[in-house]
């Protein structure tokens, strides 16, 4: 019986250890927001799992079990309500993350009757309070589909930021707006692309009704994590070609698993500049598998610039302090 208690204690401790830290900062324009509510919703935005408030520097800290979540922040100041969504929503937590949230003014919506048996959405897309041309509105049946194919999507917004979605079968939907600078409709967002969530998602659109909605957007930025949150250790290195010249436009990555690409990397650097220099921030000491590549996400492709850390046979590096001056030689795959 005593051992049974110990076993239970052991597994309880293990369970406690396997929580992940989600850190982030809530911003309104360029200023951090103290006292903003940060809410964690489950995958489909029905229930709030956890709630916290930002500290005086706008930072928040949450501990979550492995799972799929949505992060939303709300804030009221001088009678105005602000609401912000993480651009990562919905995101899978299986490691510790930094998630920044940008607050935007809350826009009311209007409802009018129409003579159809369906619902109609007439929307205006804004960026910094001004109409955003060329954005597309997407309608999803559930939040988990948001990174896949939509149920319906609009023509690009006109110069007044207007779009219209007709013939919508009544029901609950998630409305999301995106504008990708490379002109494509689908695929992961890159730095500088626009994104916006209808602030009342998920919303029940009824028949015979036309909804006039406003969707404010924000630009996706590489989450600028302050140094003290980035990680305990830093690896600084340079990507070079076979002639030893610095290589620009590649990312460095660090995995915990030897089979690269079978899980998300622990850390990804910014794209290298003309000097080829990269910095990786790692959460703890240990063994990491390091390399650089040209494209973000997916399996490397033929012709992609790619290289691995070559000081060990399986490309690992042991990290127990900051490391500098590592060099990774980049070649094109299968060429």
């Amino acid at each position: 019986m005593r051992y049974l208690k110990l076993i239970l204690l052991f597994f309880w401790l293990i369970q406690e250890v396997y929580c992940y830290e989600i850190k982030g900062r809530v911003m309104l324009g360029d200023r951090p927001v103290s006292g903003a509510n940060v809410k964690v919703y489950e995958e489909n935005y029905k229930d709030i799992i956890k709630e916290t408030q930002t500290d005086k520097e706008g930072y928040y800290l949450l501990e979550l079990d492995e799972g799929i979540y949505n992060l939303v922040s709300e804030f009221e100041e001088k009678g105005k309500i602000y609401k912000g969504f993480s651009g990562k929503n919905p995101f899978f937590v299986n490691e510790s993350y930094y998630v920044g949230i940008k607050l935007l003014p809350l826009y009311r919506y209007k409802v009018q009757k129409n003579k159809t048996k369906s619902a109609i959405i007439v929307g205006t897309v804004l960026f910094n309070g001004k109409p955003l041309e060329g954005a597309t509105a997407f309608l999803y049946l559930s939040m988990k589909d948001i990174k896949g194919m939509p149920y319906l999507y609009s023509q690009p917004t006109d110069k007044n930021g207007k779009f219209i979605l007709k013939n919508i079968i009544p029901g609950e939907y998630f409305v999301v707006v995106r504008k990708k600078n490379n002109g494509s409709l689908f695929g992961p967002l890159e730095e500088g692309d626009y994104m916006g969530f209808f602030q009342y998602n998920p919303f029940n659109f009824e028949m015979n009704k036309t909804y006039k909605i406003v969707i404010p957007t924000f630009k996706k930025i590489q989450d600028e994590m302050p140094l003290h949150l980035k990680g305990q250790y830093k690896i600084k290195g340079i990507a070079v070609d076979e002639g030893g010249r610095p290589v620009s436009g590649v990312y460095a990555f660090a995995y915990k698993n030897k089979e690269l690409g079978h899980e998300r990397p622990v850390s990804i650097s910014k794209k290298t500049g003309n000097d080829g220099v990269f910095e990786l921030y790692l959460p703890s000491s240990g063994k990491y598998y390091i390399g650089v590549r040209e494209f973000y996400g997916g399996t490397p492709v033929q012709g992609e610039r790619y290289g691995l850390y070559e000081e060990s046979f399986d490309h690992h590096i042991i990290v127990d302090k900051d490391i500098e001056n590592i060099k990774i030689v980049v070649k094109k795959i299968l060429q």
Partner: protein
Amino acid sequence: MKFLIFLIFLLFPYLSFAQIPVKEIKNEEVWQGKIFIDGIVAVRNSGKLIIKEGTEVIFKTIDIDDDGIGDSELYVEGEIYVYGTENFPVIFTSDKPVKEPSQWKYVMVNHAKYAYFEHAIFESAFSGLQIHFTKGVVKNCIFRSNVDGFRFSTANIYVCNNIMTKNKHGIRYEERDSKGIIEYNHIFDNEIGIFPVTACYNMVIFQYNAIEKNGYNIKVGYEQKKDLTFKNNYFGMVFERDIKKTIYDKNHDKHLPKVNFKPFLKKNILRSRIKCLENGY
């Protein structure tokens, strides 16, 4: 003391005491006779390994990480040339008298300069041979009693006149950004003859193969989206309806894509003519 022993017992799966031995090859090396691999042999990107006819490469059966798969492996990022002959093949096998799958891990060719395998036998491995991000030629080899006989993804490959038998999967692949030809192979008596797992786009051409007497001759993975083409292969049968039963695709599960296997060969072409290209395509 009792409690300490008990705690160690509880923590045992989380502790790793032993390291897998590693030998690195950084220059040119030639193998012949009997070669024993106890752990990992890694041919680094500066290395070149030549294996001569009749060589036996024997992998010690160890499982330090206790995952049920042998840990010994040959890992190649440089060049590998395996020159077996019909009478004196090169054999990659375990040190066990009774050969069973997963007694050793694999010959893994990954981000390597080049790979050439002729008249080699791969047996009792987790994967006999894997090729990724590499140009490779595999001719006249035998893959038997492995989990996966031959496996590849994003590779430029030519695979001709090999035998894949008594594996769980004769050929398992995620095509991704691969190009190549797989022809004149005899794939039989496997649980699944050919297993396209995902991301296959018909850029690797399967033709003139005899794919017969497998649990399923072809089984499409649940994440594969695009219809697949396996034209001009022999499936051991002459009627379309019988062949369909041996292919696990949209006909078995409406969520899967279709395998187009017509026109199909009505005779086993391997008995009459085999024309492998000299050095691949």
